[in-house]
Structure formats: C-alpha cells, structure tokens
C-alpha cells in the first residue's frame, strides 16, 4: 500500500517535470504566419543585416498579419553550411528562405534541401534584369534554377599604395606573373618592416575562403584545372597543384605572410578588414572585391579613404601565360527551403529582397557587386563613394567559376587542410599534395580522379 503511494508520488513527480519541460519548450513557438529567413551572422552592422531588416519592414507593411523572422546563424564560414544543412534537413527547423553561397547550390539541390524555382522565375518579369553569367551560378547541371542571386564578386590583389611607394615599388602596380608578387613581397619585407607583405586566407576555420581565394586563385592561373570538365574527373595531382602549394610555402617559410595566430582563426577576415588594413599594416591582400564593404559609412569599420589607399590589381597567371590575368567569381543567392510550409510567401519575400531598389541598397551597404544589369548601369552604383565597383566589374571579363559539381564542398575541405598544413610548415608541398590526392580519392572514389605528371 505504502510502496504504491510512494511510487505514485515519484511517477507524478516525473510527469510533472516532463510537463513543465514541455511547456517551457512550447513557450518558444513557431508562428504559422511567420516566415523565417536565415543568413550567416559575421559581425554587427553588416550590409546583409541592414538589408534584411529593411526588406522585413517593407514586407510586413505589404502583407499585414504576416511576420518575418530574421535568423542570424553564428558560425564560422567553415561550419555555416553544415549548420544550414542540419537546419534544412528537418521540417521543424528549416528556415523558409536561406541565404546560400552559390557553391553550395548544386550539393543542396541534389540533397533535396532547396526548392527548384525554375517555374517561378518563368512568370517573373524582373528575372530578365539579372546578369546571364551570374545566373549560371544558381543553375544546376540539368538546367534547373535553385536561387535568386543577390550578389556576385570578383577577386584580385588589394595593395597599399603608400607602402608600395615607401618600398620603391611602382604605383599603380600590375604584377605580370607570380614572381612579381613574391619579389614585391620580399622588397616590402626588407624596406618597410612591421607590415605584413602578403595576406591571404590560410586556415581551415575560414573554410571556403581559404580554398577559393587562396588556393584556387593560384591554381586557376596554372596550366592545370581543379576539375577536368571534359573527363568529369577531379585532378588530384598536377604540377599546378604543386606550384600553388609551393607559392603558399614560399610566403610563410620566408616570413612574408601574416602571423599564423591571426590568420588561422575564423575571424581572420574581420581582423584584416577592420583592423590590419585600416591601420595600413598589410601591403597586399589576395581578397574579394567585397572587401571595401567593411569600410562604408555605417559599416563595421568606416574608412571612406580605404579604396584610395588600397588599389585593386588583377591576379596574374603563374608565368604570365594566356590569358595573363585571372579572377574567380562566386556570390550569394536566396533560396527556398524544400521543407518550408510557406513557399509562396517565401517567394514573395525573395522577389521583394532582390528587386532593383533593395538590391541597390544591399550592394551599396555590403560592397558586393550587383547581379542585376539595371543596378550595374545605375550612376549611384557606378559612382558610389569609397567603392571600386567599376573596376571590380571589369574583372568579370576574365573571371572564372568553381566546378558546378555536388562534391565540390567536400573537396574544398580537403584543399583547406592542404593549405593550412603547408602554411604552418607541418607538411611540405609534396606531402600535402599526396595527402590531398589520397583523401579526395577516398572521398569521391578512384574512378572520379585523375593525376597529371
């Protein structure tokens, strides 16, 4: 009798705890009239944040009773895409609209995380205003469209004119080959002590930026591709890979690069744009056109003179071979999560966010290039103070894109390991290439790789 009562006390206690727990959880409801928009939070006052807030306000005015919840995802660039994939996998956590880097579009489309928009853009007049080259980035191999681009970019070398003058180097500067870059770096090290001669993303923590902005900017200037489009195979061993890794090795083993403790962590890009460059402590930075976005009025580190102090030079090919200079372009797009319960509303949000007015607002605040031809021709955009939109846009003429292969994101992580191992001196360029070859082969299967001697 007594034991039964004791048992009853315990069990009811158990149920009470569970019930309390559930009601606590339920106090964080997902409102059915709310659409959720997820983006990567990279720090306060970014143009992305301001733009989304502006669109939210307009959207809520136009759709009374509907709410927009902006979800900033705090993750380093290396972990953001995995985090986003985890969220999109389950209907309970899937945001309705996601800001995707276009290099993830193929993989996430293949995974069924994002919704094809091919039918929707057909009935959308505004779609014709988007640049055809940029549209490629959101189109999968079968021709389906999976996102509406809101930005694009080009890459090159930001160089500090004051430091170059001090070192006796020519301004404006245009390197003809890799050797010119290394020579300039050595000269700066010698003549202007206390500055970092050559800066580029190097760590696993900075994820895709390390693979694309450092390794691929080098590799695409050699004779060897990352991915052989004709044979549909990854080139895992080639003189080009070796040369690219040797370049990185040369930078770090000769003290021409930034301190490892600064460049190997997830916030390396912020430190560069918001501290080292405004303090003029960096002579050259291999970076994107969007870098100056940090310096706009009201941005994270306002510095309107930034684009006067720093010039933007195209990256040369290895030996100056054709086409002489190269660039890489990526960009971001808004996509609809396949698990979204408000796809029509989400589409309304995307249309609003990427219209001429809002896209102009975004690019003026963030520093990315516009994917819209009509914004590109707008004088307010072309002559935006503290910007170099015109010059960056010229780079689009010789720019290249990353392989549109669903395995790319995973291969990219192997590139990041190779770059970091070489930069920290933990592996020679040869060893790092060997490890890269073996791990990519393990990843995609031996039938999908090839080696070039």
């Amino acid at each position, binding site marked *: 009798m007594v034991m039964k009562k004791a*048992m009853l006390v315990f069990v009811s206690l158990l149920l009470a705890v569970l019930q309390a727990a559930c009601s606590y959880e339920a106090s964080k409801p997902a409102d059915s009239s709310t659409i959720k928009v997820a983006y990567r939070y990279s720090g306060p006052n970014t143009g992305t944040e301001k733009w989304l807030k502006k669109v939210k306000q307009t959207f809520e005015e136009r759709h009374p009773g509907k709410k927009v919840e902006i979800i900033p995802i705090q993750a380093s660039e290396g972990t953001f*895409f995995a985090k986003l994939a985890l969220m999109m996998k389950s209907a309970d956590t899937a945001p309705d609209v996601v800001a995707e880097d276009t290099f993830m579009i193929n993989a996430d489309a293949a995974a069924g995380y994002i919704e094809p928009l091919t039918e929707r853009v057909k009935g959308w007049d505004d779609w014709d205003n988007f640049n055809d080259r940029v549209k490629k980035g959101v189109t999968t191999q079968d021709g389906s469209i999976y996102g509406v681009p809101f930005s694009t970019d080009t890459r090159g070398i930001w160089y500090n004119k004051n430091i170059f003058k001090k070192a006796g180097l020519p301004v404006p500067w245009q390197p003809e080959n890799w050797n010119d870059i290394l020579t300039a770096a050595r000269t700066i090290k010698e003549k202007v002590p206390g500055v970092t001669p050559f800066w580029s993303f190097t760590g696993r923590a900075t994820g895709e930026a390390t693979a694309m902005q450092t390794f691929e900017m080098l590799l695409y200037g050699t004779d060897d591709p990352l991915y052989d489009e004709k044979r549909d195979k990854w080139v895992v061993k080639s003189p080009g890979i070796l040369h690219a890794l040797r370049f990185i090795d040369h930078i770090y083993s000769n003290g021409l690069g930034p301190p490892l403790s600064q460049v190997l962590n997830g916030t390396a890009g912020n430190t560069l744009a918001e501290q080292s460059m405004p303090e003029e402590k960096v002579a050259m930075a291999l970076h994107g056109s969007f870098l100056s976005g940090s310096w706009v009025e009201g941005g994270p580190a306002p510095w309107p003179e930034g684009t006067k102090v720093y010039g933007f030079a195209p990256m040369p090919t290895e030996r100056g071979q054709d086409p002489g200079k190269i660039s890489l372009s990526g960009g971001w797009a808004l996509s609809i999560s396949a698990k979204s319960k408000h796809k029509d509303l989400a589409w309304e949000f995307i249309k609003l966010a990427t219209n001429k007015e809002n896209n102009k607002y975004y690019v003026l605040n963030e520093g990315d290039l516009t994917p819209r031809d009509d914004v590109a021709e707008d004088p307010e955009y072309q002559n935006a103070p503290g910007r170099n939109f015109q010059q960056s846009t010229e780079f689009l003429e010789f720019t290249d894109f990353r392989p549109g292969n669903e395995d790319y994101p995973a291969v990219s992580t192997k590139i990041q390991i190779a770059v970091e191992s070489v930069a920290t001196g933990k592996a020679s360029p040869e060893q790092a290439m060997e490890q890269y070859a073996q791990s990519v082969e393990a990843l995609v299967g031996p039938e999908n790789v090839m080696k070039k001697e």
Partner: protein
Amino acid sequence: MMAIELVHEKSSQRNLSNAGSLEKKGKREHVRSILFLLPSWILLLLFFFAPILLTILFSFTNMSLTGSAARDMDFVGFKNFVTMFSDPSFRISVLNTMVFLIFSAILGQQVLGFTLASLMRERSRSFRRIIGTVVMAGWVTPEVVVAFVWFAFFSDQGTANVVLESVGLKPVAWLYQFPMVSVVIANIWHGTAFSMLVYQAALDDVPKEVEEAAKIDGATGWQRLWHVTLPIIRGSISTNMVLITLQTLGLFTLIYALTGGGPGTETETLPIFMYNQAFINYQLGYGTAISLVLLVIGMIASLTYIRLLKLKT
C-alpha cells in the same frame, strides 16, 4: 541499540506471518520491479542502445549531409571501412589520439596526480588545502573555459611568451608550432585532479605500519615507493588508468575549442576527425564508421574496467 533490535524482531515477525504467501510476494516484487525499472529501460533503449545499433547500421551506408546521397542513402557494404584504412587522415588521427592519450592522460595526469597525492601526505593541513583547491579548480572549470584559458595563455602576447621573453628566449606561436604540446598541457591541467583524488584515497588505505617497517629495514624512498606502496595500490592504478583512458578518448570540446584539430591535422584526434567528416565534410556515413571504431575501442576499455573490478571482489 534497543530500537534496532526491536526493529529486527518486528520484521522477522512479519516475515513469519508472511511465510505462507512467499510465492505471492515474489510475484508482486517481480511486477513491481518491472514497473520501477520501466522508465530506465525506455530511456536506455531509446537513447543509449538504439544509437549503438544505428551506429552499426549507418556505418555501412553512404549517408551524407548534402549532395544526392543526402536524399537517398545506399548500403555500400564495407566501403567506409576500406576508405578509412586508405585515408591518410584516419591514420594521422589514430596516431594523434594515441599521442594525446599517452602524454596527457596515462603519463601526464597519472604521474602528476600521483606525485601530488604522495607529496601532499604528511604536509600541513592548510598547505594541502591550498594546493588541492588550486588543482581542483582546473577540474571544476568547464571544458570550453579551459580552452579559452589556455588559448590566452599560449597566444602570441600570452603569459607563456611573456615568461619566455623574461628569461631572454624568443616568443613562440605555441598553438601553431607546438599544437599537440599545447593541448596535452591543457588536458593535464584539466584532468589531473581526478587522478590526484583517486590516489589520495588509495594512499590513505596504505597501512602506515607497512611503510614504517620498510623504513626501518633501511629501504630508500624510491625503494619503498616501488616495492611497497605501488604494489599495494596496484588496483587503483589500473582502474584509474582505464577510467582516464575512457575520459580522454571521448574528449572533444577542449581540443575543438582550442585548436579545432589543427593546424592542418596536427591535433585531430578521433572524435574531432569523426565530427569533421560527418558535419564539416558532410560524410555522415563515413563519420558513423569512425564512431563505430571509437565505440569498439571504448567497449574494449570498458570491458577491461569491469574485469578489473571483478578481480578485486
């Protein structure tokens, strides 16, 4: 005394009166025990044994976090394990795990923990308390904070370099030039208190007379330690060894927050490797196969632990 005897009597009386219904009582106990054990069973089956079964199942699939394999996973036989043994990163992470385990746990924490415990015997009470508290602080500190503390300590302008510079040495980029040393030191700092407590308890059980007798026989300190003390606390040593091995094998947060497994793959132990493969390289199936390897190592250590406890009783 009286009360307890009274109790005894009463209960035996009750047992007597119940003798006839002993079978009934056994049945009732059986039913009741099932009811009592039910919540545990449900939770353990759902969240403990099901994941273990799933580990075995999923490690034979190509499950992925993105890409077409995220939509339809396939059974791929032993492919993940074949990949694993040809993957240089796996070999490196096994090696890293062993180095980390041996230097931070088996040598570092055990030796330091024992040294502390044995030196603290016979010291003044207040001194023991101060040293004990300081060492315990490292243990009480949550792992994420341990990582920050050592991140600051080993950073370019951190305390370690200030000390080096004060004796005229060049500063070192600890986390990049000596990453394994750094995580090993951080883990020794975090984990030593556990071994210290175990050895304090063990040494308290060593009879004073035995040590005194050895002393009178003219045994030196080292001889006493080697021939008298250590054999007596042998049981505690092996149990402690297995327990800290298990703790260290499962360690994720400290390394993840301090070095992220880098630079390159320098501090990528098996848990970090597993996480990176599953959640950064998007290969959930492959990551699960690594889980299985970790699990099997854990099971072997766990069985050793049970065996050790059994030997003692």
